[in-house]
């Protein structure tokens, strides 16, 4: 009897402590932890109170090694940027590692604040349970995570295949042997090998480490976008639930709509949006900056392209993946803002008899506050997406024009076969 009661209490506490946010982002953050970027314990536990940032654990050690490795790569990229002639491929290489490093620092900051964020989210979820109707949040975030990251890994694999085949073609080799691999490493990681002495065995070791660090960097590149997308899905689901509650109340004309309670619920959602935005704003900024730069860069590279089938498949796939990811991210993040505006329309249809002070307050609140994700200095809305697209087109036209002269004079066969931006 006592045992039954005990399990009942455990069950109740477990249910009371169920945090949808923690469950929804579990898979994503676990992947980040395995990649060495997110040393937070307790992600797999159902009880979100166990989440904590541990200094003395294996994951923290792995994270420390990753940080050291990425620091070295970034420093080497910076050195090669400063040392050699400035060309677009060198700049892109440097920017890739530099933005990657900045994201690493941001993730470290996020992991420190993660348990506080989880507890705030738990508190928030417990205060809006009445309006919660979405059931498939966890499956949506998991699907999105796995789909995008699998495509990212496919793209990475395709780029490796393409690079190795180009080296083979360049050297006239037909199969994968030591010369091919040696040359591939020496060419691909030129900025690394310039500063190490080269003997055959040593270059393999350094080469494979460089490959691993590069894979981590590629993972982080897509990871930022997926993180923002998952947060956006989570936040907009609450707004959608709120909107459906309001519209179902409005359809029942006989009962008065409890506007004061609804306004309080809305304010709770707005508060959690702000709290999450505090953690996410630099991520959004970095993500937009890298997407903008790399889309312009990929478009520019299309002018240098040969029409060979392998290059075309890789290029088209890579470019489409980049554009789709950026577009998906923008639309999901802008969705938070759009969903938050919908209650305004319902308020216009409140009949005069119910037009109380609460309705007026709610109307003022909706009109004069901007709700949504921001990127430090801008708000992510649909209008902003259009401006970004316009910016990309303008920069593209200017880029093409400025380097048109260089295009004709470019005789380097290596650039012809292996555009350096490829990871």
């Amino acid at each position: 009897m006592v045992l039954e009661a005990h399990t009942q209490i455990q069950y109740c506490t477990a249910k009371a402590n169920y945090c949808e946010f923690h469950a929804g982002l579990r898979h994503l953050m676990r992947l980040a932890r395995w990649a060495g970027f997110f040393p937070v314990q307790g992600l797999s536990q159902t009880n979100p109170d166990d989440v904590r940032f541990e200094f003395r654990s294996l994951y923290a050690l792995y994270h420390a090694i990753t940080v050291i490795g990425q620091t070295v790569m970034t420093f080497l990229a910076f050195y090669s940027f400063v040392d050699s002639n400035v060309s677009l491929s060198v700049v892109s290489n440097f920017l890739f590692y530099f933005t990657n490093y900045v994201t690493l620092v941001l993730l470290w900051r996020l992991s420190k604040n993660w348990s506080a964020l989880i507890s705030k989210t738990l508190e928030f979820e417990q205060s809006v349970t009445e309006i919660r109707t979405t059931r498939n949040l966890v499956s949506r975030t998991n699907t999105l995570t796995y789909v995008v990251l699998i495509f990212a890994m496919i793209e990475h694999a395709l780029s490796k295949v393409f690079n190795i085949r180009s080296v083979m073609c360049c050297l006239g080799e037909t199969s994968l042997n030591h010369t091919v691999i040696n040359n591939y490493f020496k060419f691909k990681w030129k900025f690394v090998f310039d500063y190490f002495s080269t003997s055959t065995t040593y270059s393999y070791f350094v080469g494979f480490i460089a490959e691993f660090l590069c894979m981590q960097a590629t993972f982080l590149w897509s990871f930022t976008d997926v993180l923002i997308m998952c947060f956006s899905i989570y936040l907009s689901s609450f707004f959608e639930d709120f909107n459906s509650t309001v519209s179902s109340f409005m359809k029942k004309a006989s009962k008065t709509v409890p506007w004061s309670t609804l306004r309080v619920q809305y304010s709770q959602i707005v508060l959690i949006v702000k709290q999450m935005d505090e953690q996410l704003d630099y991520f959004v900024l970095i993500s937009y900056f890298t997407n903008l730069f790399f889309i312009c860069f990929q478009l520019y590279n299309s002018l240098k392209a040969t029409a060979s089938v392998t290059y075309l498949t890789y290029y088209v796939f890579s470019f489409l993946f980049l554009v789709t990811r950026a577009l998906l991210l923008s639309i999901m993040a802008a969705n938070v803002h759009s969903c938050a505006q919908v209650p305004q329309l319902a308020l216009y249809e409140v009949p005069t008899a119910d037009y109380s002070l609460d309705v007026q307050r709610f109307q003022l609140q909706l009109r004069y506050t901007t709700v949504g994700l921001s990127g430090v200095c801008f708000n992510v809305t649909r209008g902003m997406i259009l401006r970004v697209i316009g910016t990309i087109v303008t920069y593209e036209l200017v880029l093409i024009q400025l380097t048109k002269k260089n295009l004709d004079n470019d005789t380097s066969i290596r650039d012809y076969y292996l555009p350096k931006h490829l990871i």
Partner: protein
Amino acid sequence: MDTTKQPIVSGLSNQLEALNFKALLSDNSINLNRNRKHIKSTTRGNFRERILRKVQNRISPEPIQEDSKIPLTCQFQLFQTAMKHLLISGQFMGLNPVSRISDHSPTKIRFTVLSWKFVYGVTIGIAQACATVLCFCKLLKDSVNIVALAYFAFYLSTGCNTFIFLRVASKWPTLIKHVYETQLDSYIDVKVKNKCFAAYIIFFSMSMTEHMLSLLSKFVITMDCLPKGSDLFESYIIRNFPWLFEFDVPYYLPIGVILQFLTLVSTINWSYSDLFIVCMSIYLTSILKQINKKIEMAGNSNHLPIPFWRTLREDYTRATRLVRSFDDTISSVIFLSFASNLFFICLQLYNILSNGVTSKYNLLKEMCPNYPSGPLGGYEQIMYLLFSLSFLLGRSLVVSLVAAKVHSASMVPASALYNIPRNMYCSEIQRFLDQVHGDKVALSGLRFFYVTRSLVLSVAGTIVTYELVLLQFSNED
């Protein structure tokens, strides 16, 4: 007063409110849309009933109502009579395949996948998609030049247009139902019918003229350079559809006819979406303008009771809700129309400004054996180019300005409301003013941009910027 009791009292009332809220939510009569799928369409019924109904209709058809005999008393009738020509001619091109689209009873208007109109529309869409892919392959094969890019963009935008109109067709019955149920029957403007018909005639005639001029100029070029003893139509088709025939597709007469038909449909499709947007905007603006007129007349009278203002505000809300409902249906059409107009204007302007109106091709033509053989003595190409560009510019301008009128008409009540004298000012008027100022009522392009007058200016600025940058290329060549 005992101040220690107050927080307890307010705390209790908060808890009571929370309990009340929970009780309201758990009321089964409030369906929180937990399961949207159980909502059935009431017009369809099961298969057997539908067949029975069809048979009954055929045996004893309902009396046909003639348009001119019914006085237009409701918004739905006005909408149907005004848009009849537009919608039916669109269906000839496979656009908006809703069955019985001009019917006077809203329950008969249905979108079914198994209708021949839908199949026809999808076929045309697939043909345009194939043309797009082939043009893209040709673009990759040759270097990027203006003609190939223009063909690719043309078939891409018309293909997207066809598929977007399929989506519009799926939302059309809901839209029509909303028009039927909107209680705005006192705001009918009969002139909408004439305006829509005039717009329809103008757009179609200009579009047909453009197509005729294009055919003429292409035939003349073919005739000029025709080697002796070969078929005119065959060499015309092979010369003008390089994206198909350069991939070693053999020429047969039916293929030629199909290709000509595809070109005709695509050309009209290109300007159809602009006409569609113009007609919808005219309809929506008319409702808003009628409301504005009523407000203005009310402002001139001496005393009006508060319920009058309440009804007026509610009518305004219903009108804005109608605008929003239209916007949900047609915003993708607006987006594609603006995007393709922007692209083609930039392309055409660049073509004319960098190559001049008399292009190098014209110079080559003079070396052809039969030059000049056309009725306009060698000027057909120039005429077509100029007409096409001015039609494109005119069309984009007209669409932007007419669609922007919806937004301008929604802002007008504010000035009339501010003129109301002090003794008539009440909370209803204040609420009305708040709504007019705070609500953005406009047609949008997938909510990325709102079609207002300032958009026209920013689009023009964008075009000029891109032209200036593009022209610098040609100067270096």
